């Protein structure tokens, strides 16, 4: 194909009206003016040993990720803008409001490490459990489903407002919502596949706190990932440890991998925000001091507490002793993780930790 110069680049020349083929009567002749319009042409990204990844495409102007993306349209990064396109409400247009360097590769990881609950979980390994344990497992499935649909709702609320200049983040978050949908699917299947059913809805103090965080995605990410997500990882690990059969082992093993990707993005974003936006560390301190109150209150009253104790203790009897002790250790581990992460983020909380959370450090 012939080429012509456009902004110094060699691009395909616009073809003459009618092109090389004969026109068909009654069919409009296509126009070709757009063919010469590009910001950068001649890009040839080669696949590496991982295949062709999103991050590999960050070459030339396509790899320029600006600190602020003023464009309020759906224009893909690197495409030419079209005058006259009305703005849309993309209110998050600064890199520090959503960025994490890991987002593009986490997107690829999510696509490559996907799994299929319908056929890959060995459902035939489910066996009847004592009723108290089955009820506890089902209650945990019920509450974790609510955790997952809260994550979907808060991501999609903000995703809608994220500008296309940071498309890697929007792409990754799309996989995170899919992961959450899969978690809801598999937990519902577990609850309904072994003689039980769903339990009671949780009061959802932290869910509400997450969903009502309206100061920006970074605020929501602090609650969703640093607080709730860090706790959830400990819960999933505890459930893997206490799994009753291979079906549960696979469910929680794979849920941990998915959740770890979400936390990787969440923690990396918070780190980016704190280190690239003046004053963000102070804002985080305020947010976390408020969030700790809700987290502590929920830990006191959540039905997850007795349900997990029963699972860890092998029944109601054991749930009163070793089961509750295990649960308290789990919460202690969560609080230690949380404090270590706050240190890593540059938002130390050890001295200011809410007393209702501090008490778990005894375990």
């Amino acid at each position, binding site marked *: 194909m012939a080429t012509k110069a456009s902004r110094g680049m060699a691009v395909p020349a616009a073809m003459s009206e009618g092109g090389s083929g004969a026109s068909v009567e009654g069919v409009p002749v296509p126009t070709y003016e757009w063919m010469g319009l590009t910001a950068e042409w001649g890009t040839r990204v080669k696949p590496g040993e991982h295949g062709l990844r999103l991050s590999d495409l960050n070459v030339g102007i396509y790899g320029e990720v600006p600190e602020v993306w003023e464009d309020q349209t759906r224009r893909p990064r690197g495409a030419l803008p079209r005058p006259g396109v009305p703005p849309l409400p993309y209110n998050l247009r600064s890199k520090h409001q959503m960025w994490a360097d890991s987002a593009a590769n986490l997107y690829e990881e999510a696509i490559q*490490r996907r799994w299929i609950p319908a056929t890959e979980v060995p459902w035939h390994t489910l066996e009847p459990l004592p009723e108290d344990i089955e009820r506890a497992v089902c209650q945990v499935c019920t509450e974790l489903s609510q955790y997952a649909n809260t994550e979907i709702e808060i991501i999609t609320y903000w995703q809608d407002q994220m500008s296309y200049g940071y498309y890697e983040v929007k792409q990754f978050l799309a996989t995170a919502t899919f992961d959450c949908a899969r978690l809801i699917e598999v937990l519902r299947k577990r609850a309904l596949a072994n003689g039980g059913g769903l339990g009671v809805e949780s009061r959802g103090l932290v869910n509400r706190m997450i969903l009502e965080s309206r100061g920006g995605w970074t605020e929501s990410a602090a609650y969703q990932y640093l607080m709730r997500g860090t706790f959830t990882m400990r819960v999933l690990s505890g459930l893997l440890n206490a799994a009753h059969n291979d079906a549960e082992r696979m469910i929680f093993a794979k849920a941990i*991998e998915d959740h*770890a990707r979400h936390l990787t993005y969440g923690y990396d974003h918070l780190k980016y925000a704190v280190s690239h936006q003046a004053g963000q560390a102070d804002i985080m301190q305020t947010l976390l001091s408020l969030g700790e109150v809700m987290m502590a209150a929920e830990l006191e009253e959540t039905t997850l507490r007795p349900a997990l104790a029963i699972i860890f203790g092998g029944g109601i009897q054991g749930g009163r002793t070793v089961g509750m002790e295990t649960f308290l250790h789990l919460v202690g581990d969560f609080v230690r993780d949380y404090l270590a*992460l706050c240190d890593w983020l540059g938002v130390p909380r050890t001295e200011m930790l809410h007393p209702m959370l501090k008490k778990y450090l005894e375990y």
Partner: protein
Amino acid sequence: MTTAEPLSVKWLKKAQSIVNADSSFRKRGSIDVKMGVRIGKATYLVTFAGFSCHDVHKLNDNDLRDADFIVEMSADQWDRFLAGRRAGNGRTLADLDTTDGVVKTVNPRKKLEFLRFHTSLQAFFDAGANADATQAA
């Protein structure tokens, strides 16, 4: 394998060659991680990139910073871990870590490098454990 050296480069390379020849390992998805393994006094670095295990070598303690995380067990723990996996009912690394803290990291963020890929890493150790069993039979 001797009591003095419960794990060796040879053992790890065997696991490496098995998973690299196994299409089901690739199907688990890409894995990009540098795993330190310290059993007893000896330390090794196992590097995964893309869909395969790229490299295995012995490490000095000074080079441990190259690792994203370190799987650390006593010789006894390691033997029990392998025996359980060979028998088909043993605890996984992720499971063991919950109670015994066998995966060491400098902070909880680094622990995610293990948790994101733990089923692939388990497949690697299972490959080595099962090769032992096949050899012994």
